[in-house]
């Protein structure tokens, strides 16, 4: 006879000699305990049958709780991203693969995180430290291509100060043809700005935006050694200590700026 000892679920430390253990109950529920003795015991023991029902209920509760963590994702985009990597090999999916950046770029160190988050709405506040940033000049893109979308009004955005990595930027619903310019800043600042109507959310080290239109500017802190930019579910760039992996559709780049055009 296996495992007829120990307390039962919900017994709070009590011991009932002769009953199935919590482990045995869970294994029975999951079909992993198939010995006849346990089944026979269960048939004649109401306490253990109740414990089994309780375990089933707990499984339902846990399953429902885990389901709360579901978030939508785009299988098609992911499939094409993987297909592209397989077709071209990671080393050819974009210029700059595994380029070594200067130590000052990625490895300046990590400290405690934190920050301040600001949005376009705050720019209206008199004296707001955000005012200059939000209301500042639009990004200077050299030689815009035909696909560049122009923006007649000032962009909105969100900025946060980050002193520790990694940082994650995710842009969703970015229209095809949108120009995304990524810059690295000397200060520990993470920011995204785009056309009015765009919305932004943030958590520590993470900035997520639903883009209403471009151009989009992404500012990454040069002092952070781990960063990623995902656009419509596709990874455009990922920085790791000592390396930068650029896999998005690059339109132009120089030493501290990369411009993508979303396809």
């Amino acid at each position: 006879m296996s495992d007829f000892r120990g307390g039962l679920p919900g017994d709070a430390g009590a011991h009932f000699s002769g009953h199935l253990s919590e482990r045995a109950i869970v294994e029975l529920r999951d079909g992993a305990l198939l010995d006849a003795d346990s089944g026979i015991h269960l048939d004649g023991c109401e306490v253990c049958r109740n414990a089994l029902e309780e375990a089933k209920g707990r499984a339902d509760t846990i399953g429902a709780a885990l389901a709360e963590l579901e978030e939508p994702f785009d299988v098609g985009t992911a499939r094409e991203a993987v297909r592209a990597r397989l077709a071209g090999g990671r080393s050819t999916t974009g210029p700059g693969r595994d380029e070594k950046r200067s130590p000052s770029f990625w490895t300046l160190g990590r400290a405690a995180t934190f920050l301040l988050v600001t949005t376009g709405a705050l720019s209206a506040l008199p004296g707001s430290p955000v005012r200059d940033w939000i209301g500042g000049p639009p990004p200077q893109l050299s030689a815009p291509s035909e696909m560049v979308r122009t923006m007649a009004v000032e962009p909105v955005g969100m900025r946060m100060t980050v002193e520790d990595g990694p940082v994650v930027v995710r842009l969703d619903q970015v229209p095809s043809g949108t120009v995304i310019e990524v810059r690295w800043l000397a200060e520990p600042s993470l920011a995204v700005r785009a056309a009015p109507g765009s919305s932004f959310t943030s958590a520590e080290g993470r900035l997520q935006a639903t883009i209403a239109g471009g151009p989009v500017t992404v500012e990454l802190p040069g002092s952070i050694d781990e960063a990623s930019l995902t656009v419509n579910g596709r990874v455009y760039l990922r920085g790791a200590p000592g390396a930068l992996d650029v896999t998005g559709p690059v339109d132009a780049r120089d030493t501290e700026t990369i411009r993508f055009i979303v396809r």
Partner: protein
Amino acid sequence: MDFDTTFEEQYPPLVRYCHRLSGDRDTAEDIAQEAMVRLFERDVEGSTAGIRAWLFKTATHLIRDRYRGEENRKRLMSENPVMTTEPDSPEQALERMQDKATARRALDALPARDREMLLLRYSGFSYREIAEAVDVATTSVGTLLARAERRFSDVLLAAGEPA
């Protein structure tokens, strides 16, 4: 192995598992895609179940590597937005957010291995597959799962109790 069929079958449950385990959607998609790339690059062969087990094990190890520092993982687990320009105001949305936060907190309360085992179990893996994925004896899985479920449930129960 047909790419499209395999991807359609394997990617959705894999990315869901990665998301639950990592607490971060971008990381989940990144890790899931990395595992899929490795699957095809290495020409891994086997049954559908065998490939699934390989993918989940690979993803588990990739996430472990990425979040080797526990503080790092915990930091990413705290997904509550600081601010949103378009807040969801309905009570339902708030309740859902609270439920989600509670589920995350419950997962966060588990040791890493217990968390992996719980999520693998609730992704439909057998005890033997779980044991292989997290490198424990098959005979230990029931005990460890029972403990993980209890801890997880305790957090849920505590969240449901009036303050």
